[in-house]
């Protein structure tokens, strides 16, 4: 395991210092400045809220960069056959993949926050002091913003885990998973344009304060539970999908519900 950790660290550092990663971070900064430079009427506080939930910023710049980085790194590690000889169990392989995703998301998320704070300092209206939601007091608005950060972080980890588990798994019918991701990403666009019944179940609504109940606390707790539930599903999926053996899609899904029927899936 020590050998694996060292390898992952070196691989990660190589990737972070590579030109392609620098280019991607430049694209992220350009995207932030392009999409947020026209918004000059919001206060500093509101601006950060707005930027964290900007659907086009997340959909076009932030999430694709994280997906690309996660997939590339985990793919490099899993495809390395000489390294895979050292892997003793499925749990170890799961730890490797999850650790890589965690590192990448941490790294890009910090750059994203730096970009947002930079844009907020440049473009926010300093004479305006209103909180985001006038129905709640300042403390609740600050709590909402903090939870917003945390939920976006968890949401990013969950989606990138799902994407990575699809890519590195050896199951067939991958287009079904693509459709699921397509739907979850489409919800970002639906959130601003359509507040109809089709968009209610999709996850993007729950990164922010989902206005389902009248109470702020109920909304906060419910949306957090939804995002954490998504994370648990994604971890379960990665756990089941990480394998060096080829299996069908239905055996994986059925095995997630009734693990005892598929004892052989526990092996590598």
């Amino acid at each position, binding site marked *: 395991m020590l050998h694996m950790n060292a390898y992952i660290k070196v691989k990660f550092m190589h990737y972070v210092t590579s030109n392609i990663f620098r280019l*991607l971070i430049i*694209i992220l900064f*350009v*995207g932030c400045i*392009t999409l947020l430079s026209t918004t000059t009427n919001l206060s500093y506080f509101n601006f950060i809220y707005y930027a964290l939930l900007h659907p086009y910023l997340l*959909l*076009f*710049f932030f999430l*694709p*960069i994280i*997906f*690309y980085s996660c*997939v*590339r790194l985990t*793919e490099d590690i899993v495809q390395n056959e000489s390294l895979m000889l050292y892997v003793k169990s499925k749990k170890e392989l799961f730890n490797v993949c999850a650790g890589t995703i965690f590192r990448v998301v941490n790294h890009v998320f910090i750059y994203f926050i730096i970009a947002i704070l930079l844009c907020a300092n440049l473009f926010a209206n300093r004479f305006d002091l209103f909180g985001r939601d006038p129905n709640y007091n300042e403390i609740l608005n600050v709590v909402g913003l903090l939870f917003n950060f945390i939920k976006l972080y968890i949401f990013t980890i969950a989606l990138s885990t799902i*994407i990575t588990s*699809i*890519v590195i798994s050896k199951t067939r019918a991958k*287009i079904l998973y*693509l*459709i699921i991701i*397509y739907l979850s*990403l*489409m919800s970002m*666009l*639906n959130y601003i*344009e*359509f507040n*109809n019944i*089709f968009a209610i179940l999709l996850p993007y609504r729950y990164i922010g304060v989902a206005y389902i109940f009248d109470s702020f606390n109920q909304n906060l707790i419910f949306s957090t539970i939804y995002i954490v539930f998504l994370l648990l599903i994604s971890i379960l999926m990665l756990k089941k999908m990480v394998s060096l053996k080829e299996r069908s899609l239905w055996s994986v899904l059925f095995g997630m519900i009734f693990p005892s029927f598929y004892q052989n899936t526990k092996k590598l």
Partner: protein
Amino acid sequence: MKDILNKKLNVMLFLLFFIFFVLSLFGFFDAVNPNNWIESARYILDDVSKYSFWTYINSFSIYAYVIYLAPFVIAFVGVNAFHKMLHSGFLFNLLQRTYYKTVFIREIAKCWLTALILPIMSVIIFIFGAILYKNSAIIPLDSNNGTLILTVKEYMTIINPDLFIFLHFILLVLFGIIVINIAIIFTRYIKNIYLVSLISFLFLIFYEVVSNTLIGPFLANLVGIKRLANGLSIYNLFWLDAIPSMLWEFIFAIIMILITLFIIYIIYLRGKRDATYERLY
């Protein structure tokens, strides 16, 4: 085997777009009367023209937002078989029996078949509207209670609307070909199909940002053509929103295809003889 897989993926992609169209249809009826969809369908039957219906679905509904993520999926589905052939060593087996250039031109032409899915969906929407609504007026509609305002596309009022839909069909084909060409270029360097589709999508978004914010306004001031920033957008081939002219869109799309084809020629075909498969890697 690869053809079957490609076919299956194409069918799945078509079904995905169709599901979004059905959702948009519910949204369309929902916009007039949220309580009773069937009643609302009867109510607007005489008022809505088939062109207004087509414009609503293509511009304001959930289906209109399909196009944001369409390059990601079109690139994945279009290049899947080609990528598999190139990186699995199957090409080496093929080259013992046929010529290098013949194989490449044939395979790239097969990839372009995926570009037909989005235009076919557009035609299906139009046929659906034509069956449902007999009215063929191009006057914008404002419903009585003010909840629904339908307009037609700008160029539908200038040229024949049926001709406009035909031109839109061709423009969508060109849009798909541009996306697939970009994915083919990245296929040469990246060995994972998911990374190919992701990086094509990122490249397209980056191009949109640069062209709309830097190149477009600069050229518009330099040349004097109005709305040039929208004219340089690849995404706008679908919406056709505030374009310089229809002719410009065709010229732009063809120029983009020629540029991408030239890059494909350089990285795949230039200087490659028939037995130089090894030199490719």
